[in-house]
């Protein structure tokens, strides 16, 4: 639209409408809004300006992830004030130090440990209203203290739906790293050297390791570190794929076969190797979680591969022609 001049008063009106309408369940209010829009073409221009600013601000968490330095200085003061919560996100060094603190807490033997075997997932409802879904072969220890909530994912994978509490952040320790959250929903994988965090809702901070910096993940992003890799990959991700196991499915969108093999090992036990000739295969598809034979059969139907079994070890090899 052509830019239209609008007054400061119109701008303020537009803001008021925007906020009021965001969660408005009353049709008459929308009709009043329509009248306001039609009363002066400048109103629509002012309203669009509000929307534009709203959209521009979408990227603020990414900016703050990229340029956190200026804010760290104020950390202690901010913490004391209990406000400006985003300043809690720590740079790598400080976060690494806090991983130690978490471990220490667990060494004192407090907290409740939950485990799952190879045959079932488990939902754990915590006293604070949060929920943790444990994938198969997973161990999580939870500790709820007055000023802090912590969980340690010793191995496996878990989806966390954390109830927001301003005064009690929730910290997940996994793979020597720390994931700090407020109210949010995310999936953590810590299995056989692979580490991953996928965020469905809210904002999550993941501490760095050794040479890598801490990362802040807004909703719809995932951090992945395959086994043996030296750095993290942060990318846009469909969180529904990462959470699919909570509904008994594995969903792959253009994933390497190695990642699928790791899942097969995780769900079926034993080790699963991949023939070098198949290394470049990318997998897209849905697999229903079940016993190892069922998993193998589905994968064989999905891909030009065959799965051979020897003494509890499985090898993915090219299909015979």
């Amino acid at each position: 639209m052509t830019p239209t001049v609008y007054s400061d008063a119109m701008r303020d009106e537009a803001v008021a409408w925007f906020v009021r309408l965001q969660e408005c369940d009353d049709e008459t209010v929308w009709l009043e809004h329509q009248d306001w829009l039609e009363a002066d073409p400048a109103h629509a221009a002012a309203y669009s300006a509000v929307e534009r600013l709203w959209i521009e601000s979408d990227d603020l968490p990414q900016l703050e992830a990229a340029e956190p330095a200026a804010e760290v200085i104020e950390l202690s003061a901010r913490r004391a004030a209990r406000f400006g919560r985003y300043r809690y996100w720590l740079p790598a060094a400080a976060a690494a130090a806090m991983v130690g603190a978490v471990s220490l807490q667990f060494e004192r033997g407090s907290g409740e440990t939950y485990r799952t075997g190879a045959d079932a997932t488990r939902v754990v409802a915590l006293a604070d209203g949060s929920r943790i879904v444990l994938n198969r072969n997973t161990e999580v220890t939870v500790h709820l203290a007055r000023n802090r909530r912590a969980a340690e994912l010793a191995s496996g994978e878990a989806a966390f739906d954390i109830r927001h509490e301003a005064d009690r952040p929730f910290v997940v320790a996994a793979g020597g790293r720390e994931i700090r959250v407020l109210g949010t929903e995310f999936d953590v994988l810590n299995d056989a050297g692979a580490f991953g965090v996928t965020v469905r809702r809210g904002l999550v901070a993941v501490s760095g390791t050794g040479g890598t910096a801490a990362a802040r993940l807004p909703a719809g992003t995932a951090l992945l570190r395959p086994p043996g890799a030296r750095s993290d990959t942060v990318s846009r991700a469909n969180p529904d794929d990462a959470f699919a196991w909570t509904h008994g499915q594995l969903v792959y969108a253009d994933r390497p076969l190695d990642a699928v093999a790791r899942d097969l090992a995780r769900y079926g036990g034993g080790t699963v190797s991949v023939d070098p000739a198949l290394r470049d295969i990318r997998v897209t598809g849905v697999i229903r979680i079940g016993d190892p034979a069922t998993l193998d059969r589905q994968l064989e139907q999905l891909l030009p591969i065959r799965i051979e079994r020897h003494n509890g070890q499985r090898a993915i090899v090219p299909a015979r022609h």
Partner: protein
Amino acid sequence: MNESNLLLSTFMQRRASLLRYFAARVGEAEAEDLVQETWLRVASQPAVGEVRNPAAYLYRLCGNVMLDRLRQERSRAARDAEWRRVNRTLVANGEEVCEDVPADNALIARDRLRRIRAALDDLPAPVRRTFRLHKFEGLSHSEVAAELGVSRSLVEKHMMRALKHLIARVGR
């Protein structure tokens, strides 16, 4: 009648009103497209939970369609800029063909973002906190209200104050 049928029939009844809403926002030429987009969203939606007021729900959907249209415009502009940046090297005689230097767009966006952040820092802590909880952590107005132990109308007041200030500081 299930919820999505209810939404579809409400859409049919309100189609002209929704068209009028979009026409007031973007002009008549584009309004039809946006109504169509809204229809697709209603039709493709998996069974929604309880919808208190289907008509208001549709209007909110229209609001989201408008926001997503802006988002798409922004990412298209970013893609175009990237394309020009990459392709500029192909110009044989070494002269700059593009009038606007594309990298500037990204710089300007970045600069505006920094100004938004700075403007946010001007605000009193409760206002800033309300804005962040709602905007970045996806809490609804009532959830923010419960979280901070204040009324929902105070949450809306804080949101208005924050947005007014950001727009005044960063401009259009």
